[in-house]
């Protein structure tokens, strides 16, 4: 029985392989517009998490997205052809892109082939299978608006990514990183009442 989201303006349904906790919120089925996972648990959303309108899950057939409890995903985009994990209590701000693949080759000939294929498709989708490097966002991570998390990155528990950063290297736990490319600015003291 296809599941529709109550009061959804969008006509879509929640895919059968999307396991959303009954106390989690997915505001609109628009987020599944490019969700093509064939994995039995293609999407998992933990208790108390929310995917607000504008959040887009662009997931390929082998992709698997796991979102923990009490996460806030605010108009952000996940590109996943293998694995993207987000730990509990994480805050992902607007227009953030988290990607486990570039969906393109780094050699010119392969890119030309991909562009020819795209033009021949009815939906004009561009995106060929490309090497994937899973992304792991830890627990209690805050990612500032407009940031990009590139393939293969692990962000340690408790860390903060400043707005408009591009993260290509792992982020240690309890750190603040910022910039493009992102660099550690300073450590966060666990017991501090203020930063």
């Amino acid at each position, binding site marked *: 029985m296809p599941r529709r989201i109550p009061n959804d303006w969008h006509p879509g349904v929640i895919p059968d392989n999307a396991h959303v906790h009954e106390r989690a919120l997915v505001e609109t089925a628009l987020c599944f517009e490019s969700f093509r996972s064939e994995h039995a648990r293609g999407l998992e959303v933990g208790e108390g998490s929310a995917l607000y309108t504008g959040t887009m899950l662009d997931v390929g057939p082998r992709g698997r997205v796991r979102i923990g409890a009490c996460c806030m995903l605010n108009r952000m985009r996940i590109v996943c052809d293998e694995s993207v994990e987000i730990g509990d209590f994480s805050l992902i701000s607007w227009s953030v892109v988290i990607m486990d693949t570039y969906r393109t080759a780094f050699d010119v000939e392969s890119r030309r082939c991909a562009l020819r294929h*795209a*033009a021949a498709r009815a939906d*004009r989708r561009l995106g060929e299978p490309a090497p994937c490097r899973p992304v792991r966002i830890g627990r209690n991570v805050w990612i500032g608006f407009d940031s990009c998390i590139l393939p293969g990155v692990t962000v340690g528990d408790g860390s903060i990514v400043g707005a*408009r950063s591009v993260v290509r290297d792992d982020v240690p736990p309890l750190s603040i990183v910022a*910039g493009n*490319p992102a660099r550690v600015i300073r450590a966060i003291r666990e017991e501090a009442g203020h930063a």
Partner: protein
Amino acid sequence: MTEPLPRGRWTHGELPASIRLGPGTLLSGDHALRRFRSGLADAVEVGSNTTLDGVHLALGESARLVIGDWCHLSSVMLLSEEEIRIGSYVAIGWNTAIADTDFHPIAPALRQADAIACSPIGAGRARPPAVSRPVVIADDVWIGPCTTILKGVHIGPGAVIEAGSLVTTHIPAGSHVMGNPARILDA
């Protein structure tokens, strides 16, 4: 006898005569021409089999846009007062902005005059000139999502521009760049 390729088309209506799309090219999105103001007879020329999906053609009165064949642009803002030229086999990721102009003057007095001219109460006043310089992107360039390409930039063939980059200088052919400002990455 093979079927002729479909003519290039816009999904949201009739194209002005000054916009020419080659066979198999698709321009989609109802915002595409919302800020299109070019008065040139050959304002926009796009080759064949190119996909312009959610692209904004924000062209000023004397602006020109040329795009080659087999390109794929997704949610890209093309902001031009002079000329943007894109080759063939170019892929540009979503949320990218390409601007060939500063939009506003640098000098404070001129900038203030521009603020007045742009305001609802300044209608009809001539705007002071802003600097513009054409942007040229060669064949086989890959530009990742969320990038910004500023005025006067020439990107050489085969270059790869990482997501989130802001490009202000010429990029040599075959380079791999990243950052704000964009810098060439060591191999």
